[in-house]
């Protein structure tokens, strides 16, 4: 019963509220009746009617206030006030459309940038990984590379920290050729251990995961595949009946056992930038053990275990294994929580972006504060009038704040549009190897963030002007001669302080952006060890129908010969591993070299290449000779090493002519320059090149060509030439080497570009701020300037005075900004390359840039001031 009466009360209240203008009118009428009755009573006592009415009104008091009091029983006072403030705010915005648009635009740009960055941070750092209990998953690698199968099996069996381990053996772009139905196509596959999906807590959307039996077969002949959602949609038009069907992969029948859900995006978590089409089983057998270090593992911790303890346990286990199995590759397990592994690399850059966008927002607020203060000067009389009519100080303050919050909320609406565009653009940056970037989107959390940001922004930039309101003494402002009041002087002081802070913030941003751009340029200038210009690559794996090496080699011969005969072709070669891909390494030593216990021989990366590869990629030969067609199975086993491996194995000696232990002894015939194979910023490490015709030990083959013309013009002719060899050959895309390099520098470029964009926006805002403050002060001092000019001050003199005051503000801002930058850029250190955080060129350049921009922003009002006609100036007012 209580509830029902409450409900009735609420309904009545709602009705009153909806009908409030009518209610208000009736209340007013009721009160007028009351006064009329009082008047009549007084008149009956013999007072004249007008006097009686006046007395009744006096006794009744302020009708407006009384009616508001009465109204407040059914509509909260603040709600009524808010409605009024909103009305006033919108009226003011309409009246002053120009500056309103400007405020909304600036606030919108700032809030849009913040929301976009928030969405990125939310996707990459805040949201848990899309797996079951993702916080218990641990990333397990061998230093930073892969683990050999037998080592993995021992670790899996012996450890006490994890409920289980699972792993995947890399991602093989173009690793499977799909033939049979439709266009032949090269698929990107990822071999995974049997329990991989179970461990992550991922259920196939249709069908099932691999069975234990399917994981026992030969790796080269997988009995089953799982399709990724994207591939299933693209190739099979989301046909559910595909499960159970047989596909032809690498000329062998394979059954589709399941389709993974859309929510499982393997590539975006583990191998950003290489979407995986199919998953095949990675059997843990003697066969796969022979492939060397192949597995990257993930463990699921027991609820009471920690990654640190697991690390300690694995280090001990690895030592035992090294003693018991000297025949295996050494393993140095390195464990990190999976989330840290996935987003750890992006974290410093994201933190920089978060700080940058925060600083941009501060500049936006300072700028808008300044603008509102300028408008306040104009609206002083309006405010004074309101105060005279009984608006309390708090009420005026609230009105000002409502206005600024309304403005920033309008800005947020614009910002949301920008953020939607921004997040879409970022999520579709396929060329980026940043994990989880594809999952960036504007979600409910980002909407909430935007709302909070809008309100905070409004309060922040409205607070200073709102507090200034009280410094306008009512009487003084209502009088017309409003020059030089104390309120004004204070106002000027506040505005100068705001501009100085804008310059300081802009300076810090510019320095940060400058350092990152200089690092980026340095990275682009690096000697990569190969020349990416005019070079391109295409996947041309030999068909697995070729059973022997003779057949395979003749296929390779034909590929090379046909490619080289194309017009415009400078060089062509084959390799199994392209730059920035693959990390297979073998342990080798020089013949006769003995390593003491505890020391390991070097482990160079292995590349299987054909003759012409060094020329095609532009790798310089430093000594000896390159491979030739004569390096065949029947001839002497040879190898080419890079400078680092030559230096490591035979320090101070000639490497050419030495023998290394690989494959029972290979003679070094040449030494080539180091190639930055892993990452642009990383020196390549030891490498050795094996001639393709002397080994079958490669899983893929890439054709690399160097052309006289831009490579994409040759794409179709290369494809045609290859089709004549094998019409069933799935020809993949022609990728330029420059694309590979661009992809490798993409995160750095992205960060530098974004920060440069923020810094440019900040510079624009700061210069607008300077301009606004100087031209305001010129307007204020029109009379003074007129007098000075009448007394003989020259235009140049005036201009330089104004410019000097501009530069004074700028110098103060610069000094603060430089000091802050110097203190803060240390945090950038991990993102810089070949540039120190205190790089003098950057600091001096940014200083000069800011002074130049400030001079221009100050010069425009200064010129206007010098053109003031003294007579006009003196007559005005």
């Amino acid at each position, binding site marked *: 019963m209580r509830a029902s009466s409450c409900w009735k009360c609420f309904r*009545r209240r709602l009705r009153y509220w909806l009908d409030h203008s009518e209610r208000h009118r009736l209340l007013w009428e009721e009160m007028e009746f009351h006064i009329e009755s009082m008047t009549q009573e007084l008149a009956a006592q013999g007072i004249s009617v007008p006097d009686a009415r006046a007395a009744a009104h006096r006794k009744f008091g302020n009708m407006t206030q009384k009616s508001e009091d*009465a109204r407040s029983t059914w509509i909260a006072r603040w709600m009524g006030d808010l409605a009024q403030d909103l009305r006033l705010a919108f009226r003011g915005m309409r009246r002053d459309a120009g500056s309103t648009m400007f405020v909304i635009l600036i606030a919108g740009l700032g809030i849009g940038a913040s929301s976009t960055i928030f969405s990125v941070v939310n996707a990459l750092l805040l949201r848990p990984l899309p797996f079951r209990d993702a916080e218990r998953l641990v990333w397990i690698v061998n230093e930073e590379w892969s683990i050999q199968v037998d080592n993995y099996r021992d670790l899996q069996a012996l450890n006490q920290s994890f409920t289980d381990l699972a792993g995947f053996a890399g991602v093989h772009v173009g690793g499977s050729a799909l033939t049979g139905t439709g266009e032949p196509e090269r698929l990107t596959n990822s071999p995974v251990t049997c329990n991989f999906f179970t461990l992550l807590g991922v259920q196939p959307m249709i069908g099932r995961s691999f069975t234990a039996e399917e994981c026992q077969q030969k790796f080269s002949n997988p009995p089953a595949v799982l399709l990724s959602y994207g591939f299933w949609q693209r190739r099979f038009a989301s046909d559910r009946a595909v499960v159970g069907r047989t596909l032809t992969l690498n000329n062998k029948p394979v059954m589709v056992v399941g389709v993974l859900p859309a929510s499982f995006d393997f590539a975006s978590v583990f191998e950003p930038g290489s979407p995986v089409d199919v998953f095949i089983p990675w059997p843990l057998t003697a066969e796969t053990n022979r492939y060397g270090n192949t597995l990257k593992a993930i463990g699921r911790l027991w609820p009471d275990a920690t990654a640190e303890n697991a690390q300690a346990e694995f280090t001990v286990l690895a030592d035992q294994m090294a003693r018991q199995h000297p025949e295996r590759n050494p393993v140095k397990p390195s464990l990190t929580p999976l989330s840290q592994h996935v987003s750890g690399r992006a974290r410093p850059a994201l933190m920089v972006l978060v700080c940058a966008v925060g600083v941009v927002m501060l500049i936006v607020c300072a700028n808008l504060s300044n603008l509102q203060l300028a408008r306040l000067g104009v609206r002083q009389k309006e405010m004074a009038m309101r105060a005279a009519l009984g608006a309390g100080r708090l009420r005026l303050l609230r009105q000002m704040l409502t206005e600024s919050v309304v403005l920033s909320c309008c800005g947020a609406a614009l910002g949301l549009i920008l953020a939607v565009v921004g997040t879409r653009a970022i999520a579709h940056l396929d060329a980026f190897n940043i994990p989880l970037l594809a999952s960036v989107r504007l979600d409910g959390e980002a909407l909430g963030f935007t709302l909070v940001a809008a309100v905070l922004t409004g309060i922040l930039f409205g607070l200073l002007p709102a507090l200034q309101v009280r410094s306008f003494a009512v009487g003084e402002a209502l009088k017309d001669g409003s020059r030089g009041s104390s309120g004004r002087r204070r106002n000027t002081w506040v505005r100068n302080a705001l501009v100085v802070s804008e310059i300081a913030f802009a300076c810090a941003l510019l320095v940060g952006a400058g350092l990152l751009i200089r690092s980026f340029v340095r990275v682009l200038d690096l000697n990569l060890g190969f020349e990416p210009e005019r070079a391109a690559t295409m996947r041309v794996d030999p068909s697995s129908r070729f059973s022997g090496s003779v057949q395979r080699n003749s296929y390779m011969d034909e590929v090379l010969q046909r490619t080289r005969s194309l017009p415009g072709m400078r060089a062509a070669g084959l390799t199994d591993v392209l730059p920035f891909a693959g990390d297979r390494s073998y342990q080798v030593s020089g013949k006769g070299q003995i390593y003491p216990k505890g020391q390991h021989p070097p482990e160079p990366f292995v590349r299987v290449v054909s003759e012409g590869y060094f020329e095609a990629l532009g790798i310089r030969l430093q000594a000896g000779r390159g491979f030739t067609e004569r390096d065949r199975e029947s001839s002497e086993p040879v190898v080419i090493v890079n400078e680092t491996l030559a230096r490591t194995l035979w320090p101070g000696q000639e490497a050419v002519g030495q023998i290394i232990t690989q494959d029972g002894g290979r003679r070094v015939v040449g030494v080539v320059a180091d190639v930055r194979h892993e990452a642009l910023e990383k020196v390549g490490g030891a490498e050795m090149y094996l001639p393709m015709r002397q080994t079958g030990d490669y899983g893929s083959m890439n054709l690399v060509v160097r052309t006289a013309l831009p490579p994409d013009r040759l794409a179709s002719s290369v494809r045609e030439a290859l089709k004549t060899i094998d019409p069933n050959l799935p020809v993949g895309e022609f990728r330029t080497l420059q694309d590979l390099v661009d992809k490798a520098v993409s995160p750095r470029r992205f960060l530098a570009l974004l920060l440069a964009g923020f810094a440019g926006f900040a510079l624009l805002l700061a210069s607008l701020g300077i301009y606004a403050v100087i031209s305001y002060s010129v307007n204020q001092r029109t009379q003074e300037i007129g007098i000075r000019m009448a007394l003989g001050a020259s235009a140049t003199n005036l201009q330089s005075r104004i410019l000097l005051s501009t530069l004074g503000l700028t110098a103060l801002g610069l000094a603060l900004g430089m000091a802050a930058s110097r203190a803060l850029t240390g945090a950038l250190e991990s993102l810089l390359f070949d540039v120190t955080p205190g790089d003098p060129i950057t600091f001096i350049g940014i200083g000069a840039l800011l002074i130049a921009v400030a001079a221009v922003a100050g010069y425009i009002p200064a010129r206007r001031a010098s053109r003031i006609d003294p007579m006009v100036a003196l007559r005005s007012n």
Partner: protein
Amino acid sequence: MGTEKPKADLLPGTLDMLVLKMLMRGHLHGYAIAQLIQQLSDDLLRVEEGSLYPALQRLELKGWTEGEWGLSANNRRARFYKLTPDGRKHLAEESAHYRQVTGAVARIMGFA
């Protein structure tokens, strides 16, 4: 006269009760309620207009009174209030409660 203070402040919450009690006599408009309270208390209690109208709004909102427009004695449009059954019940509860409290106060003060 307009500035003079009421001769006695009402105990908080009693205004609502007094208004309801006045309405036991029948339909009354706001002015009449104020006058009646003043007369019945021998001019001791004077209802401020500033609190009367919020009180009338409040009582109506709670569903204890119902207002309707009618004509006053001198033929002017006025808003007359009447008690609802809920209002009657509430008045009974309130007056019982008030009697207890004032009785207790009086006993302590030694008035009774």
